[in-house]
């Protein structure tokens, strides 16, 4: 039997498990397997290997689930404790924005007065006025970044590959 026929049979055996076969391919393969001992053995061997892969019994480490559940609950508590703080942070930001909008005309007058006093160009005043509004957001970003740094400094047991 030619080498090409074996190669095709092996390719179809793999294809059957990856993508599935067309009817004509399946017919050709089963006819070939009936005649070819080598390919038939290969098919059986692959079946055995995949069956073994499916049925491989891997012992679970003792208490893995309960230890994990404990850690997850601890982390959940930690996150819950942080949530009200974060809510307060956003509330404070929102309040300061509202106050900022309400007080904008007065703040602009203050900037104008400072401009007259120092002789600063109007562009600088406008930029300064814009920056004034970003202060709550900058503050919130700083707090969140600090929280991120805190997380990355968590104890080693909380990280994989300790």
């Amino acid at each position, binding site marked *: 039997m030619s080498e090409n026929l074996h190669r095709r049979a*092996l390719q179809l055996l*793999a*294809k059957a*498990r*990856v*993508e599935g076969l067309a009817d004509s391919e399946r017919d050709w393969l089963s006819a070939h397997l009936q005649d070819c001992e080598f390919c038939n053995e*290969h098919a059986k*061997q*692959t079946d*055995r*290997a*995949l*069956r*073994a*892969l*499916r*049925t*491989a*019994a*891997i*012992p*679970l*480490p003792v208490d*893995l*689930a309960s*230890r*994990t*559940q404990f*850690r*997850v*609950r601890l*982390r*959940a508590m930690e*996150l*819950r404790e942080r949530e009200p703080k974060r809510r307060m942070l956003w509330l404070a930001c929102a309040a300061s924005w509202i106050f900022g909008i309400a007080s904008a005309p007065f703040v602009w007058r203050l900037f104008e007065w400072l401009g007259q006093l120092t002789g600063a160009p109007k562009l600088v005043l406008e930029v300064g006025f814009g920056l004034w509004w970003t202060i709550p957001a900058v503050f919130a970003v700083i707090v969140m970044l600090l929280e991120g740094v805190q997380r990355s400094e968590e104890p080693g047991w*909380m*990280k*994989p*590959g*300790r």
Partner: protein
Amino acid sequence: MLMRDETKSIARGLQKRDPDLLDRLIEQYQYRLFRYLLYITGDKARAEDFFQETWIRVLERGHQYDGKSKFEAWLFAIARHLVIDWQRTKKAQSLDALTDPEQDKPLQIANESEPSPLHQVLAQESEMNVQVSLGKIAAIYREVLVLRFQEELQIEEMAGVLSIPVSTVKSRLYRGLDALRSALHEGAA
């Protein structure tokens, strides 16, 4: 439809960080997740660490799961990314770079004088030759074989877990089957 309802309810529970749901999911998926991690890391202690860390991520990022795909596919994707991130901190580019046989870097085994934990575990099976052969296969191929034939994920789901195109999943499966055949042949010789 039933599966869809189940995944939607998991998504809702994860949004709320429901502790009872998480307990149940940890129980339910402990075996499959640990087995997957053991196959891709080849190290029992490391697999344990990643197992715990994966569930912490599930808690923290549960709101990102939309319930449109299988929960296990999302879970395995998280686990895999954790392993890859860890590999990167060990100055490797990715799991693939560490384990691609064409780069001549097989899966690292902690103590080469002893059988690896994976080999020890696999050797307990009655079909020892087959199992040991599986342990010899490069991790990227073993991983696709595990996802396809143990976890029975669809090719598209695997592509999602592995963040690679469907065509690459297929080619890895073909190579994995080929590698399995070669490993078996060597084992029998």
